[in-house]
C-alpha cells in the first residue's frame, strides 16, 4: 500500500523509475482500486497514459471480456478510427492506411507472417491479454519499418498469484472456444500458461457452388511466460508462443460447363520465443537485453477430386531473429534518456522464391523525454535503420503535450515513418500459367528478364530494370494534433486531427511483354498518397451503473497523381448507357478504395458490481467505401463502385455466480443480421453464443 500511495501522488518523476520497476506487482493488486493506466508502447517503457503526448488508445482486459471477444479482429473492429479490411486475410486499417502499414507487436516484439502485406488478425487469441495499446501516427522513430500508420501492441498477462481458470464457449456455425489460464508466483519466480482452441465449421453464402465462403478450421494457441528474479536488480524473463491452424480448402477451378473440383488442406504455424534480462544497474540506470526469435510457416496442398492428382502445392517459411539492447537513463526528474541498438536477421523460403532469401537490418534509436515543468511534456526521438537491400532510413519524431489546466491538455506530434520493401516486392518469382502472367520481384527482375531475352521470349521491354532501379523504402510524414478534455470525473473527450503523407508507394507495374503477348509485372516506387481526417472519442458515466461511449472518424484518403491528372483533365469516365464520355471532376473522385469517409461507434455499458451483472449494446457504423474499379478508368468515381454503408449491432449479458468463481455470459454478434454476400464475405450473419468461465482458485488479494 505504501507503494500505491507513491503512485497516487506521483508528483516527482524521479519516483517514476521506482514505479516502473515494480509496476507488475502493482497490477496483481485488487482491481477495484482505481489505478492510473500504464502504457508501454508510446515510449518503449512504462508511462502513464495521461502523460503521453501522442494519440494512444488503451483497451483493457475488462473491456475485452465485456464484449466477449475471442480474436483480435473482434476487439479492433469496435474501436474509433479502426476498420477491418479484407485483402488476403483480415487486416487493420488505421488512419486510412492499409494493413501493411501498421506494426503489430506481442509484448513489444513484432509478429511476422504477412500475406500481401496483411497480418491475419484472427491468428491472435485474446484470452490472456492484459491490455491492447494502440499508438496512432508514424512511430518508426522507435519501431522502425512498418510503423507508418501506427503500432498495435498486445500486452499479455504476467504471472500473478496462483490462479487457474477455464473458459468454454459455443455458438452459431458450431463455433467453439476453449481456454485455460494458469499462473503461479513465488517470491523469486513466476510462471504462467495459456492454452486455447478455437474452431468453427464456417459458413456458406453460395450453397449452390462448390466450396464454402469460410471453410471449417480449427486452431490452437499455447503461450507461456517464466520470470525469475536473481536479485532485486536482475530479472530474467522467458516467453514463448506457439500457434497452429488447419483449414480445409475446396474450390472449383473449372468453369460452369466443366467443373473441376479441388480439395485439400492448408496450415499455418507461428512460433515466437523471447528470452530477456532486465537489469537495474542503479537508481538511474535500467537496461534490457532481449533475444527475440520467430518462425512463420504455411503449407497448402490441393488435389483434384476426380483423379486425386495434384493441382497445387505451396509452402512459405519466414524466420526472424533479433537481439536488442535498450537502456534508460533517468538523468533527473526532468530528463529521461532512452537508447537502443539491435540487429535483425530475416530469411524467407517459399515456392515462389528462388532459394533462401536473406535480409539484415542494423538499427539504433534514441529518445529524450523532457519535462521542464509540470505542464509540459516534450519528447524527441529518432531511429536509424541500415538495411542490406534498400539502404538506410532515418526516422525522427517530436511530440509534446501542454496541460492548459486540469481539464484540458493539448498535444501534437510529427514524425517520419517507413516501410521497407518486403520479400515479395524484392524476390518474388511467380508465373501464373493459367492466366499467363508473371510477377518478378525487383531484385530478381534483371537476371530473369535477361534469361527470357536470351531465349527470345520477350517481345518488348516497357520499363527497363535500370529505369526502375533499386526499390526504396516507402516513407511517410505524419502529423497529429489534438486535445484531451476531462470536464469532470464523469466526462472524457478526445479529439485528434491527423494527416499522413506517403511517398514512394510500391506498386506493381507491367515492365515487359512476352512474345506470347502475356505481361510481366514487377514492383516500382510510384505513387504518393495522403490521408487526413479527424477522430474523436467520448465517454460519459451516466450513473453508478451506466456508461455511454462513442467515437467518430472522418477520413479523406487520396492519390496525388490521380488528383494531378484530374486537374489536367486526363481522367475520363464513360456513361455505360449513353456512352457519353466526360472528364472526371475532383468531386467525383472518391479517393482510395476501401476507405470509409465516415465511421461511428456507440456503446452503452451497464455494470452492477454488487449483483455481478454486466450488459452492453454496441453499434458500429461503416460508411460507404470503394470496392474496386468497374468503369475501366481505375479510380473510384462511380456509384456502383462503392459498397453501401451499414450498421452492425452487438450485445452481451453476463452474470457472476458463486462468489465470482463462475461467470456465465451470453451474446449476439451482428444482431441485425446484416450481410452483403456480394462484397463482404467476412461478415457472417447473426451469431449467437454462450460461454462459461470458471476460476478454480480465485485471486488471493492482500
Amino acid at each position, binding site marked *: 500500500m505504501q507503494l500505491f500511495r507513491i503512485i497516487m501522488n506521483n508528483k516527482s518523476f524521479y519516483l517514476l523509475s521506482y514505479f516502473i520497476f515494480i509496476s507488475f506487482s502493482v497490477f496483481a493488486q485488487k482491481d477495484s482500486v482505481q489505478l492510473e493506466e500504464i502504457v508501454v508502447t508510446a515510449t518503449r517503457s512504462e508511462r502513464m497514459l495521461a502523460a503521453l503526448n501522442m494519440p494512444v488508445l488503451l483497451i483493457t482486459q475488462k473491456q475485452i471480456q465485456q464484449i466477449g471477444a475471442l480474436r483480435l479482429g473482434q476487439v479492433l473492429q469496435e474501436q474509433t478510427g479502426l476498420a477491418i479490411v479484407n485483402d488476403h486475410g483480415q487486416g487493420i486499417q488505421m488512419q486510412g492506411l492499409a494493413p501493411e502499414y501498421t506494426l503489430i507487436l506481442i509484448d513489444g516484439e513484432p509478429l511476422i507472417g504477412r500475406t500481401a502485406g496483411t497480418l491475419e488478425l484472427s491468428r491472435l487469441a485474446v484470452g490472456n491479454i492484459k491490455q491492447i495499446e494502440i499508438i496512432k501516427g508514424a512511430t518508426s522513430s522507435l519501431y522502425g519499418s512498418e510503423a507508418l500508420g501506427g503500432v498495435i501492441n498486445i500486452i499479455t498477462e504476467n504471472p500473478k498469484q496462483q490462479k487457474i481458470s477455464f473458459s468454454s464457449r459455443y455458438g452459431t456455425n458450431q463455433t467453439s472456444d476453449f481456454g485455460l489460464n494458469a499462473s503461479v508466483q513465488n517470491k523469486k519466480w513466476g510462471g504462467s500458461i495459456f492454452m486455447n482452441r478455437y474452431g468453427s465449421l464456417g459458413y456458406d453464402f453460395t450453397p449452390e457452388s462448390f466450396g464454402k465462403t469460410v471453410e471449417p478450421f480449427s486452431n490452437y494457441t499455447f503461450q507461456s511466460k517464466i520470470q525469475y528474479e536473481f536479485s532485486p536488480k536482475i530479472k530474467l524473463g522467458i516467453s514463448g508462443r506457439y500457434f497452429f491452424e488447419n483449414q480445409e480448402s475446396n474450390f472449383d477451378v473449372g468453369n460452369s460447363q466443366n467443373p473441376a473440383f479441388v480439395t485439400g488442406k492448408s496450415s499455418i504455424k507461428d512460433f515466437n520465443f523471447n528470452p530477456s534480462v532486465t537489469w537495474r544497474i542503479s537508481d538511474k540506470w535500467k537496461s534490457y537485453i532481449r533475444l527475440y526469435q520467430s518462425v512463420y510457416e504455411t503449407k497448402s496442398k490441393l488435389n483434384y477430386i476426380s483423379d486425386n492428382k495434384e493441382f497445387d502445392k505451396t509452402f512459405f517459411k519466414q524466420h526472424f531473429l533479433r537481439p536488442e539492447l535498450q537502456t534508460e537513463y533517468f538523468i533527473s526528474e526532468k530528463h529521461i534518456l532512452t537508447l537502443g541498438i539491435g540487429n535483425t536477421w530475416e530469411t524467407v523460403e517459399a515456392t515462389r522464391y528462388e532459394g533462401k532469401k536473406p535480409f539484415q537490418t542494423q538499427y539504433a534509436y534514441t529518445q529524450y523525454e523532457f519535462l521542464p515543468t509540470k505542464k509540459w511534456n516534450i519528447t524527441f526521438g529518432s531511429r536509424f535503420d541500415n538495411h542490406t537491400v534498400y539502404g538506410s532510413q532515418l526516422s525522427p519524431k517530436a511530440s509534446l503535450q501542454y496541460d492548459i489546466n486540469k481539464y484540458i491538455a493539448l498535444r501534437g506530434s510529427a514524425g517520419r515513418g517507413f516501410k521497407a520493401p518486403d520479400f515479395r516486392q524484392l524476390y518474388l518469382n511467380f508465373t501464373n500459367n493459367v492466366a499467363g502472367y508473371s510477377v518478378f520481384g525487383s531484385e530478381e527482375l534483371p537476371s530473369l528478364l535477361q534469361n527470357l531475352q536470351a531465349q527470345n521470349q520477350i517481345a518488348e521491354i516497357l520499363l527497363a530494370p535500370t529505369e526502375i532501379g533499386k526499390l526504396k523504402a516507402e516513407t511517410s510524414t505524419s502529423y497529429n494534433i489534438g486535445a484531451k478534455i476531462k470536464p469532470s470525473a464523469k466526462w472524457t473527450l478526445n479529439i485528434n486531427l491527423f494527416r499522413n503523407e506517403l511517398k514512394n508507394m510500391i506498386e506493381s507495374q507491367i515492365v515487359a511483354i512476352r*512474345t506470347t503477348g502475356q505481361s510481366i509485372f514487377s514492383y516500382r516506387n510510384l505513387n504518393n498518397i495522403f490521408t487526413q481526417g479527424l477522430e474523436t472519442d467520448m465517454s460519459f458515466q451516466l450513473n453508478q451503473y451506466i456508461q455511454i461511449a462513442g467515437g467518430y472518424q472522418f477520413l479523406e484518403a487520396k492519390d496525388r497523381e490521380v488528383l494531378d491528372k484530374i486537374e489536367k483533365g486526363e481522367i475520363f469516365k464513360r456513361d455505360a448507357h449513353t456512352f457519353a464520355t*466526360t472528364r472526371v471532376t475532383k468531386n467525383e473522385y472518391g479517393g482510395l478504395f476501401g476507405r470509409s469517409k465516415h465511421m461511428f461507434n456507440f456503446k452503452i455499458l451497464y455494470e452492477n458490481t454488487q449483483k455481478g451483472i454486466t450488459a452492453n449494446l454496441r453499434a458500429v457504423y461503416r460508411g460507404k467505401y470503394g470496392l474496386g474499379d468497374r468503369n475501366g478508368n481505375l479510380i473510384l468515381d462511380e456509384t456502383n463502385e462503392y459498397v453501401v454503408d451499414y450498421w452492425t449491432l452487438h450485445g452481451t449479458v453476463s452474470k457472476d455466480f458463486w462468489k465470482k468463481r463462475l461467470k456465465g455470459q451470453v451474446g449476439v454478434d451482428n444482431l441485425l443480421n446484416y450481410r452483403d454476400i456480394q462484397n463482404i464475405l467476412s461478415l457472417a450473419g447473426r451469431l449467437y453464443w454462450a460461454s462459461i468461465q470458471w476460476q478454480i482458485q480465485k485471486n488471493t488479494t492482500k
Partner: protein
Amino acid sequence: MKKNITFGVLLMALGFVACKKKENDPAPVVLEAKIVSNLPADPTVNSGTGQPQTATGKYTFYNLKDNAIVANTDSTSNKWDIGFRGTTIIINGGTVRSGQGGAYIYTGLFEDLKEIPATQEFATDVTNTQLAIPTGSGNGWYNYNPQQNWISPIAGKILVIKTGDGKYAKLEILSYYKDSPATPSATALARYYTFRYIYQPDGTKKF
C-alpha cells in the same frame, strides 16, 4: 452542338448492326460519326463436348470508308484499315503489313480532337507483337479488371488511325462485349466490339 445532336440520333440507332452511309453529299461540312456494334473479333466458341473453348485465331478486318468487314483472304491487301482479334488491334501499316496505315492514341474527348497536329507521328505494326496500338492492360485502349475478369475500354483513349490507303480517322471503342452490357456480368460474351468513328474521306487531318 450540331455534332452532339447528330451523335445523339446515332446513339438511338445503336443496337442495329451498322448504320447507313451517306454518300450523296458532295461537300460534307459535318462529318458523321458512325457506330459499329457487336463486331465479332474472333469470339470463342464452346463446342459443347466438354472441350475447351476454341477460337479461329483470325483477325476481323474492317474498312472504315466502306464501314464494312473485309474478307480475311484480303489480309495482305490495303483494303482494310483496322483488324480485331480478342483485345489485340492491328493497323494496316508497318513492316509486317501491306497498307500505308498507322495509328496513335489520343487522350481526350472524341469531340475535342478537331485536327491531328501536323507534327504527329503515327506508329506502325513493326512486328506481330510490337504493334501501333500496344497490347496489355493499361498500355493501350483497355484496362483489365482481374477481380471481375472484365475488359473495359479506357474512357478518353481515342485511336487516331491512318487508313490502309492513307486517309485519316478517329475511333473510340465503347464496349468489348456483345450488346454492350452496362455492368460487368459473368455471362456476357466477350470479343464483340462496339465502337464509333469518324472517317475523313478528303485526306486532310481535320474532323
